[in-house]
């Protein structure tokens, strides 16, 4: 009985990732000592973690559906600018955040419609949307920072509870809720069916289109939340926030067990993937000294992650 449950719930991938993370931690602490585990370094590792966590979590949904969403970085920036602009114009925080989330939801819905109804390849559709909303962000701000926000707003991300920063609590909390839902909630379970075999899902009475749209919608909303957190944390809106974040999100999700061919994905794995990517980045910087390498590392990790994914699926028994 329990064995079935385990297959339903826990992947062995997560255990491997956890061990890997711990190993890196131990080795680094041994080599670099306090330089590594100083609170300054640790907080630099985790500085981007909360945004990455949200984006990677959203990306996992889309990957499960067999799609991809390149627009998340732009959605993050755009939502942030919508919210901060509203705040600067004196709107209430609740209204600004509500409208920001609505905007991100609409972008996600558009992505989903382009992909599932108009049959545009996901990477083309979301690449175009990425360009549109990055441009919109610049148009709305003319390239300037949006500043002069109410103090309460910045306390959303900057505050802390029991010594843990709010943004970590929020993103990890959302991640945990979604990961719980993904196992147990029917509308998310359907995504696995759709990603695994779109036609079979349709013939099994699962509304493949609605499910796809829902996936892209959740992904964009999470990017929107990340946009709110990042603007709150920096106390300003900026059009260049989130450039290249989509790549880190894809890497982390794939490292965490999501398959590029759809039908598979594991939120705990994704969370561990995010930590691993951040950690490897940090290790590299510790030895090399230049944070400029971090983009290159994301690229290499993406290739490695996808290559491992392909090798894994080759080993899996296929066919009738």
């Amino acid at each position, binding site marked *: 009985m329990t064995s079935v449950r385990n297959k339903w719930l826990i992947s062995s991938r997560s255990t491997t990732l956890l061990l890997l993370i711990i190993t890196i931690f131990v080795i680094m602490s041994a080599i670099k000592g306090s330089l590594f585990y100083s609170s300054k370094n640790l907080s630099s590792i985790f500085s981007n973690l909360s945004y990455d966590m949200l984006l990677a979590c959203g990306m996992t949904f889309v990957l499960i559906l067999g799609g991809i969403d390149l627009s998340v970085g732009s959605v993050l920036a755009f939502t942030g600018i919508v919210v901060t602009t509203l705040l600067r114009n004196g709107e209430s925080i609740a209204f600004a955040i509500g409208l920001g989330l609505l905007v991100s939801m609409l972008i996600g819905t558009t992505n989903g419609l382009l992909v599932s109804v108009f049959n545009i390849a996901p990477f083309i559709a979301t690449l175009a949307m990425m360009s549109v909303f990055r441009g919109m962000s610049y148009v709305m701000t003319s390239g300037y920072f949006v500043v002069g926000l109410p103090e309460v707003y910045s306390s959303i991300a900057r505050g802390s509870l029991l010594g843990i920063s709010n943004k970590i609590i929020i993103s990890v909390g959302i991640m945990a809720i979604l990961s719980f839902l993904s196992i147990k909630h029917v509308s998310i379970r359907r995504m696995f069916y759709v990603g695994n075999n779109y036609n079979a899902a349709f*013939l099994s009475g699962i509304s493949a289109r609605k499910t796809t749209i829902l996936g892209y919608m959740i992904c964009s909303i999470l990017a929107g939340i990340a946009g709110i957190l990042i603007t709150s944390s920096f106390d300003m809106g900026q059009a260049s926030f989130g450039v290249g974040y989509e*790549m880190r999100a894809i890497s982390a999700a794939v490292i965490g067990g999501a398959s590029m061919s759809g039908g598979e994905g594991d939120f705990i794995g994704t969370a561990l993937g995010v930590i691993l990517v951040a950690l490897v980045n940090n290790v590299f910087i510790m030895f090399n000294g230049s944070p*400029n390498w971090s983009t290159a590392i994301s*690229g290499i990790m*993406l290739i490695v992650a996808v290559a491992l994914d392909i090798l894994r699926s080759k080993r899996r028994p296929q066919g009738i």
Partner: protein
Amino acid sequence: MLRKIKNKMNLHYLVLIFCITCIFVIMSIQSPFFLTWNNIDVLVNNFIMEAIMALGMTMVIISGGIDISISGILPFIAIIFAKLMLIGVNPWLASLIGLVVSGTIGLFNNSLRHVLRLHPMIVTMATQLTLKGLNLAITGGSVLSKFSRSFTSFTAQRPLGLSIPIWIYILLAVLFVALSKHNRRFIHVFFVGGSNEASMLSGMKINSIFRMVYVISAILAGLAGILSVTVYNSASYSFGQGVEMKVITAVAIGGTSLTHGGEGSITGTLLGTLFMAIVYNAFVMSGISTYYQDVFTGGMLIVAVLLSEGARAINKRTNQAKSLIK
């Protein structure tokens, strides 16, 4: 029957030419500066790198793939070229090295695609990201400049009033139109894009055809990088930001299908490129924020894809079962 199809393609060209003419006329009326030699010069030179890369991208997309690594290759080769010159290497030799390196990157793209059976989008995205990171790391974010006087005066030449990149583009455009219409290897690109299976059954070596298009695309991006150095007399990691979107959009506007390989033409791309160049210029002339360029590019890409897929998409919406029956 033949006439019908030819007309369909011609219709696409005609519509594009009509649009281009319209913008041209409107802009000339609206702004007295539009039709000045100076502005035409700016218009052409501002989109020349994209235009060069669009030639290679067209072949990649016709083969059924895509290459977004070009926005990483362009600055990477520019930096290598600049670094080599700064340590005293002859510019011609440095150019050659730059082109060879970019070709190697194209080979690498194709090998990853072939060996791992990955979608070219993922492969070239990873390459792009890696190169962008390398660019930043190599330069440390600073701009490379201060080349020798002889180099800068050589590159500033304008034979017959046209800059060197434009001459190179004209040569390349003629070459690519001719090759894509008459060269056997280039025709096989259309074949492979149209039907992998038919090509294989006809005994074509599919991978070597893919290899050719990815190498060409990468070399043209490298060339654009070298030319950027000659134009700006500097090299920076920030060259070529978002250039892949503009290039892909120009190709899509030119009538090359992003969803079905084997459909498209270099001629269409030439028109698509001209269209984009004029629209961007019109933005500047009308005083609209250049930031609208990105919005416009993304929007045009979606529109172009929707137009070319429109009929098919609507058909499928009413009849999902189509994909069920083989």
